[in-house]
Structure formats: structure tokens, C-alpha cells
């Protein structure tokens, strides 16, 4: 357990040291969402309608950006080998890395989303649902993403290949996440969507570290 905390602490420390890293996933999120009004035009009704979808797609892309680096640096400098050789089970350490990734790329989005939602003229209730959906959805993204990151590890064309592998798997999170907000706006109640999201999260929390560990071992052979 100590080792897991050490992994989380280390990843956070590294991110702080690279300074830019903490804030930039966030800025990417902000910039991508801000690009849409520029590309689509300023009509408020239209913007409000597409807001949940745009916010979720942006969140998805923002979490995906950091994925590639999740194991790559550790792989390149040999730390990953040391992790495999550590007495702590690899699955736990991987869990730590996933948690750190979420804290760096998921959590900030959850906290910032309401501000961006305001730009799209969402009301308070919808903002709450948006935050809750992101809170359930972003760990799911990190968990699924970790599998992709491990599978593409050491493959030089990895970054884009990773998105090819991971984005299709993100579809349910996107649909239920954006769906929750839309259902709330339409007055249908977001409960169903949110509980499905939670169920998916539980499923992924169970399987993803296992699959990631298996993929990492293969990458290191």
C-alpha cells in the first residue's frame, strides 16, 4: 500500500516539476471548448443545444492527451522494469498510476466544467449534473485509457494509434455522460444515465488494472 501511495506521489511530483503539465490538460479542455463557438458561430440557442456534447468530447480528448505519457516515460528510462521487479504486485502500482493520471487530467476538468458550462448558458441544475457525470465518467476514461496506453507502449507511432484503440471504447462513457446532461435539460431526469455510468465505472475498476498489467508485461518482454 505504501508503494502505491509512493507511485501516486511520485507521478504528482513529476507533473509539478514539469510545471506546465498540471494546468495544460485543463487549458486544452478550455481551448477546445472555446474553439467551437468560433467554428460554428455565436447563436446561443444552437450553442446551448450542443453544449453537453461538446464539453464531453473535449473532456474525452483532454484526458486522452495525457494517456500516452502514462507509461512511456517510465518505460523509456527503465523505471517500469524496476516496477515489475518490485516486491509490490504490479497491479497495485498500475492502479496507483491510473489514480495519479485521473487526479491530473480528470479531476481538474470536473472542477472547471461548470465555468465552461456557463459560457454555453447552461443552468445551475444542468451544471450539477454535468459535474456529477464527469466525476463518474473521467475515472472511467482513465481506466480504459490505461489499457490502451499499455498496449501501445514502446510502439513509436503510439500516440495516434492509442487514440484509434481507445476512442471507440470511450463511446459508452460519452453517450451516458452527455446523455445525462441532455436528459436533465429535457426534463427527463438524469438518474438512469448516471447509474449506468457508475455501473460501467465499477466494471472498469475491476477489469482495467488487470488488463493493463497483462499488456505491460507483454510490452516489456
Amino acid at each position, binding site marked *: 500500500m505504501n508503494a502505491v501511495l509512493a507511485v501516486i506521489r511520485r507521478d504528482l511530483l513529476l507533473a509539478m516539476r514539469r510545471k506546465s503539465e498540471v494546468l495544460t490538460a485543463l487549458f486544452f479542455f478550455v481551448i477546445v471548448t472555446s474553439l467551437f463557438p468560433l467554428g460554428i458561430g455565436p447563436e446561443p440557442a444552437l450553442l446551448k443545444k450542443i453544449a453537453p456534447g461538446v464539453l464531453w468530447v473535449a473532456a474525452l480528448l483532454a484526458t486522452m492527451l495525457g494517456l500516452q505519457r502514462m507509461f512511456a516515460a517510465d518505460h523509456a528510462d527503465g523505471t517500469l522494469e524496476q516496477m515489475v521487479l518490485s516486491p509490490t504486485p504490479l497491479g497495485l*502500482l498500475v492502479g496507483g498510476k491510473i489514480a495519479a493520471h485521473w487526479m491530473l487530467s480528470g479531476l481538474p476538468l470536473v472542477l472547471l466544467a461548470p465555468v465552461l458550462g456557463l459560457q454555453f448558458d447552461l443552468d445551475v441544475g444542468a451544471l450539477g449534473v454535468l459535474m456529477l457525470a464527469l466525476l463518474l465518467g473521467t475515472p472511467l476514461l482513465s481506466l480504459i485509457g490505461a489499457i490502451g496506453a499499455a498496449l501501445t507502449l514502446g510502439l513509436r507511432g503510439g500516440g495516434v494509434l492509442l487514440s484509434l484503440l481507445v476512442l471507440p471504447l470511450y463511446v459508452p462513457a460519452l453517450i451516458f455522460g452527455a446523455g445525462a446532461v441532455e436528459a436533465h435539460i429535457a426534463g427527463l431526469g438524469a438518474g438512469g444515465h448516471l447509474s449506468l455510468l457508475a455501473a460501467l465505472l465499477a466494471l472498469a475498476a475491476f477489469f482495467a488494472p488487470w488488463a493493463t498489467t497483462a499488456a505491460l508485461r507483454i510490452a516489456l*518482454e
Partner: protein
Amino acid sequence: MLSIHGLSCVRGERRLFAGLDFAVGPGEWLHVRGENGAGKTSLLRLLVGLMAPAEGEIRWNGENVRTLGEDYRRHLLFLGHHGAVKEELSALENLQLASQLDGDALADRSALAALHRFGLKGREELPVRFLSAGQKRRVLLARLVTKQAKLWILDEPFTALDVKAVDMLSALIGEHLADGGMAILTSHQAMPIPGGRELQL
């Protein structure tokens, strides 16, 4: 005690070696030699379990290391070609985090002592990125002092080190052996450590 039975290694379609048998007991060390590409690194990676052998078995005190798992890795320290140091972190942080990964915390005091022993005084807080090739290597080697492991497996530990550091490291390995440790090393140079057997690949 580490013993190897009928070990073979295949990389790609190339058979690097086959039917290798040897054992290393307390206080013994093995010098793995061979030309470039002979399979020294591959052998070490097999020994620590980063690769699976094509044939044969590796046993620790008589038990297969595959089944032992963590109980084997706990006694093991492997330093490879790779730096395994984070360029953004300082030498001190690197050392402490490496220990934490093994599940034990390392006090500032002993970490600093280890770094000083390796001649990194005054560079403890500098990001490793700024260190010279040899200094980076020394950060890595400082783990020899901080991790209590019975079996050291070192891939070309003398690379990039200057004459003084080579002597220092040899002395360190000597102490480890005198304490009943074991070591398996590769190197293209002659090794200034008494005793030890050679394995020619």
C-alpha cells in the same frame, strides 16, 4: 542460492545460447563475458524475470522463480543499461522514490549518505538532467547502498564511470560478497574484484 538449469534463449529467430547451467552461492560472483550481441543482457533479463526463457529453469534456493514471484524479487536488485532515473527529479528524490517503490521509506540522512559516498556531494538537489553521463550512472548505483538485496544483477556497471568511481564500486561489491551476498555482472573490461568465476557466452 541461485541456480540455472538447461537455460536457452531465443531472440527473433536467433538462438543466443542453450543448455546453460550454473549456480551462484553466498559470497560468490559471476562475471558474464562475451562479445557484443552474445546475449549477456538477454541472460540477465531472463534471470530477473523480465523475459521468459525458451527452455530451462531458474531456481532460487531450489524453487522456480516463476512460482516464487515476489519472494524472489524482494531479494533482487537489477540495474540495467537504462538509467531508470527521472531527468526532472533531483538525485535525492530519485533515490527516495526508488526505495518507496520497493515499499520502504528512505530517510534523508541515509539517502544523502549514499549519494555522498558516490561523490555527488553538492549535486543532490540538481535535476538529474544537468548531470554528466557518469554522474547519472552514480545516482543509479547509489541504490546498491540503500536497498538491502542479497542478489545483485548488474549490466555493465562500470560504463561511464571514471577511475576513482570504478575502484569505489569494486570495493562496494567486495563488501557485499564478504557479507554473504551474491553478484552477477557483465563487463567488457577486466574486473578488479577478487574471486569470482567467468561465464563465457
